[in-house]
């Protein structure tokens, strides 16, 4: 049997100091860590549980008008939160469709970010909504990193070894809208074959004045596609079709049991086009 220590500190700083040790890992719900342990992909010498740290499960609107999610907010809590459902329905939806009730009851948003498994549902939504990850290190210093930079590759993040995720914030512009769609031809608890997240904002006269797409499960990180060219009421159905094709061309899917790379690219184009057609008002609808 290998040596292992376990601790459950009551402050984030103590937890960051504990994870600074060799091969120590922070653990919240334990779903990612449990799978990685079982697959023998990790061999930690210490596990540092975050479950005794107060405030880490808070969901609140900050004074500067951002939605703030504590790192240990569970997917079930995200899906349940009236604030989240009203502000970013896409985020609640993405949290609601992950795995099964057992996973959602304990898996956390911070864990999803730290795991950086590109097949997850929540990270593409956070990418589309331009969320930021806020961290604390063992010296007590804080950093804020945009999710689009935080996720660097397959299970690779900008997180340093002595650094922990404290919270995630999402800017809430006036007229914010969001949508999320996952395509899963198999059983419901499966990972998505592809997923598409849309985030943006509408002006009072119903023009889309901000638009971002993020494509999940089709690259080593969610793929961000800025949609500025479709904004301000100028986009025709042909423009949207061309944009969706362009978005699909930026993906780098792998061929696996869920489909070939070519098939996945096609599915991305189809669903991106449908979702953009839903998000962008027809010219006649702009007042």
């Amino acid at each position, binding site marked *: *049997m*290998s*040596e*292992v*220590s*376990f601790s*459950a500190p009551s402050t984030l700083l103590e937890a960051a100091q504990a994870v600074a040790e060799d091969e120590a890992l922070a*653990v919240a719900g*334990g*779903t990612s*860590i*449990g*799978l990685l*342990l*079982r697959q*023998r992909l990790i*061999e*930690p*010498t*210490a*596990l540092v*549980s975050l*479950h005794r740290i107060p405030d880490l499960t808070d969901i609140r609107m900050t004074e500067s008008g951002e939605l703030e999610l504590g790192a240990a907010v569970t997917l*079930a809590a995200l899906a*349940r939160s009236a604030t989240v459902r009203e502000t970013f329905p896409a985020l609640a939806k993405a949290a609601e469709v992950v*795995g*099964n*009730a*057992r*996973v959602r*009851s*304990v898996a956390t948003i911070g864990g999803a970010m730290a795991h950086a498994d590109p097949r997850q549902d929540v990270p593409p939504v956070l990418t589309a909504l331009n969320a930021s990850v806020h961290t604390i290190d063992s010296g007590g210093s804080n950093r804020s990193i945009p999710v689009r930079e935080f996720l660097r590759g397959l299970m690779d993040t900008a997180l340093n070894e002595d650094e922990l995720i404290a919270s995630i914030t999402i800017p809430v512009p006036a007229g914010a809208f969001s949508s999320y769609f996952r395509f899963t031809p198999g059983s*419901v*608890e499966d990972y998505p074959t592809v997923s598409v997240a849309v985030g943006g904002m509408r002006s009072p006269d119903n023009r889309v004045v901000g638009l971002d797409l993020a494509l999940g499960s089709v690259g080593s990180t969610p793929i961000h596609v800025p949609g500025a060219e479709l904004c301000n009421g100028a986009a025709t159905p042909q423009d949207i079709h061309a944009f969706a094709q362009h978005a699909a061309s930026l993906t780098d899917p792998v061929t696996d049991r869920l489909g070939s790379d070519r098939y996945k690219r096609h599915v991305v184009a189809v669903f991106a086009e449908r979702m953009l057609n839903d998000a962008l008002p027809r010219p006649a609808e702009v007042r």
Partner: protein
Amino acid sequence: MFHLQTNVDGQELEADVDAQSLLLEVLRGAGHIAPKEGCGIGVCGACTVLVDDVPVSSCIYPAVLASDREVWTAEGLSSRFPDVRDRVLQEQALQCGACTPGQFTAICALALSPDKDSLDSEEKVRDYMSGNLCRCTGYEALIRAAQGVLGHE
């Protein structure tokens, strides 16, 4: 090695575990054999137990995380929630029995869930229970039992 101290079905449990130890093997090794290993990757639900009244897949749950927490298996839950047990029996919601402890634990979890009130349709109950697979496909009686426990008659 880590000396785990936890509480299972209302009884103290101590065991020496390592980082790789999963809760399911610790429970079964200590004689708590209601949770079963099915798929081993957290999908089928045969290993479902409650940790601090939240359902988890014990086959992928690091045992050390159960430190100083309360674990409940189907065995203890059948005494803790006799009404749920009776409802499952009344609906004859079991066939070969392999998935039954997990299904029963999932129904207990449903009764304890903060999402209980929002599960107001059969479809939502089915969705909640979809994480527990039955290889005999005996789902109808299980859903009836779950609906009954929620008071949906």
